[in-house]
């Protein structure tokens, strides 16, 4: 017989009072809440409602898509748009320099492809006696870890240059500025850094261009009022937000009906989402903000026994191969993976006293249907996760280095 203290119902009601009120309070005010479009609420989303849409950038990148780049098109990773250059006289070294690379992650196939290319480029620069070694740290998608990594490099104080692929621009800004403060060259690539202290920012044209390319293709191939399902990987990642913002803008102009979903790039979620959409009504096109999402989308139609509509993807081979095999209307926008080697080349140039563009914009050439076969043939024997724009054909390790599973 355990004479427990008697629970007065009052305490219970109080308890749930607290619970309820807490939830209310939280949902009521969300300081700094930055929800853009509300996902998967059908037509609810409009570009104008999307905070991350910026007309100015849209126009710039729209122009850059078709601009002519300085340099030999055969080596696009060396091309750039004319603009301010960085004086490299101060950064010239009389010895091979040590490069410290803070990498956001290797958690998707695009980054893995780029990382291989970068390591092959490193071999070249090492053999040329330009770079002594590359010390790389992988932040595994964690802002906190990346800041710690950058600070570690700064504290260790034995880097001749920094390469930083930020995880999320705002969060790493402070650390990047600390790196700049060391006076050593700092190269940012892929995502921006939320600051402009860096020596040079290496990136291909950008997310807006990517979105414009893919969305325009859909707009051109789907009749007005058609229904587009947009699959978004994750909110808040600037690259994806830009792609989406641009695409959303195009769709709206083209008068297409858009339903967008956040999928976390989980193929299971993608397929069930689309299955439901297919069950509910017609889907005229599927737009994805990441190539990996395209193949599950295509499969969803196959499994439902429905014809595959327009499905855009990216230059990842899994998509290109599915596209060729299944012969649907496809289009592969590109976010050039070879920028990974360009970042290293930029450092090499600085060490050698060669000037480089302050804002190194690389070309970003999509793969339309007529270039599909070429792209596939050029990458025979490469794994599904490989990207056609890896840009390593001239590197020593080619092709075996990219073929390991």
């Amino acid at each position, binding site marked *: *017989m355990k*004479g*427990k203290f*008697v*629970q007065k*119902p009052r305490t*219970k009601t109080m308890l749930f009072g607290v619970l309820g009120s807490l939830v209310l309070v939280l949902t009521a005010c969300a300081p700094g809440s930055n929800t853009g479009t*509300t*996902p*998967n*609420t*059908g037509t*609810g989303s409009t570009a104008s409602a999307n905070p991350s849409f910026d007309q100015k950038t849209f126009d710039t990148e729209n122009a850059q898509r078709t601009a002519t780049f300085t340099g030999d098109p055969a080596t696009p990773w060396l091309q750039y748009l004319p603009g301010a250059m960085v004086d490299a006289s101060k950064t010239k070294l009389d010895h091979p320099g040590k490069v410290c690379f803070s990498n956001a*992650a*290797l*958690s*998707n*196939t695009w*980054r*893995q492809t780029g990382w291989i290319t970068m390591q092959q480029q490193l071999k070249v620069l090492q053999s040329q006696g330009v770079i002594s070694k590359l010390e790389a740290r*992988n932040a*595994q998608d964690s802002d906190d870890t990346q800041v710690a990594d950058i600070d570690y490099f700064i504290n260790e104080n034995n880097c001749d240059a920094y390469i930083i692929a930020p995880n999320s621009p705002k969060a790493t800004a402070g650390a990047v500025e600390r790196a700049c403060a060391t006076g050593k060259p700092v190269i940012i690539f892929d995502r921006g850094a939320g600051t402009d202290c860096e020596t040079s920012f290496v990136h291909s044209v950008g997310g807006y261009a990517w979105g414009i390319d893919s969305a325009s293709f859909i707009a051109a191939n789907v009749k007005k009022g058609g229904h587009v399902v947009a699959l978004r990987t994750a909110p808040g990642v600037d690259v994806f937000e830009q792609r989406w913002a641009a695409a959303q803008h195009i769709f709206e102009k083209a008068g297409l009906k858009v339903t967008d*979903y*956040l999928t*976390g*790039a*989980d*193929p*299971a979620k*993608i*397929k*069930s*989402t689309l*299955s*439901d959409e297919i*069950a*509910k009504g017609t889907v005229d096109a599927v737009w994805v903000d990441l190539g*990996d999402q395209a*193949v*599950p989308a295509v*499969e969803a139609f*196959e*499994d*439902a026994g429905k014809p595959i509509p327009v499905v855009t993807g990216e230059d990842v081979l*899994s998509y290109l191969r599915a596209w060729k095999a299944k012969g649907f209307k496809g289009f592969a926008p590109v976010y050039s993976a070879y920028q990974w080697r360009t970042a290293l080349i930029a450092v090499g140039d600085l060490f050698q006293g060669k000037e480089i563009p302050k804002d190194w914009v690389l070309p970003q050439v999509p793969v339309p249907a007529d270039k599909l076969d070429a792209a596939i043939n050029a990458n025979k024997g490469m*794994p*599904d*996760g490989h990207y056609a724009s890896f840009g390593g054909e001239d590197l020593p390790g080619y092709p075996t280095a990219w073929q390991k*599973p």
Partner: protein
Amino acid sequence: MTTTTRFTTERRPLLARVGRGLRTPGGAIFVLLAILLVGLFLYNPSLGDPGQFMRFLGRTAPILIVALGQYFVIVSGEIDLSMAAIIAAQVVLAGNLIGQDASRILPVVLLMALLALVVGLLNGVLTTLFRVPSFIATLGTALVVSGITFYATGGAPSGNPVDSFREIGRGGIDKVPVFGFVPYSTIVLAVLVVLALVLMRRPFGRMLLAVGDNARMTALAGASVWWLRTRAFILSAFASTIAAIVLVGYAGVSPVVGQGYQFIAITAVILGGVVLGGGRGWVLSAIAAAFALEVLFSLLDFIGVQSTWRPAVQGVIILVALGVPLLRFTRRRSQTLRSNRPNK
């Protein structure tokens, strides 16, 4: 409370038993499921079509199978946090080792079975013989397994296995009377559920419940407690593996495949009236609960609730499922206490 009715061998009429059953948490879940299904059909009539519905059921199969595995572990008084890691590992194994060569399917599947056996055995032995709490033991194995998986794949596994292997997750039998289309995954699910039901009626299953209820008594009854629990962990690992096979078929290889499945499974099992700590709960209720969760989630999608609210809903469900019965219990207990006060 003591009953003084004379012991009778014949069981009470089916209806009466069903009636009483539905008032238990394990029974109530079926009512909830029915309600949710009605809602689903209202918001998406197309699912009323048997074929469509079977497809829907088919794609929920993996999570249901995982819940099935988790049931065995929880009912025996332990918990398994290594399921997601096993799924990831198995998916990658299938993707990378089978590749486009159909002839490799059998050997690789055998290898996967071996891996499941090893991990399950490890979880069980660590928990029972080395007395590492299952929470920690399975967490540890999860870290090891997923760590190795991602190390081997550099962090982003890709490359789907040959289509013939993926059929089990994608394909099905068409033109079946009544159902129309029957995905293979639903057949796998059905078979596993039947097996589980049988297993829980066999001595093993009954003893598993007994262990969860009172391990000391079970030991004195001559059962080897460690082996019972270890087998539960092995079953759980196999469930994860089968789920992985269906999943790699349905969705293909991806770094995030199977993520968070174990917590949905745990939620489901608890929602199904299975008591954390063991000894109580019906396997079918756990499955029903898992299915109810999936139905609820897609219902939310149809209604247009942001998918980001999903975890919140899951959380509320957990708390309500556990909180309400407990509140009732404490109130009853306080009454019995009062009745024990001096009567004057």
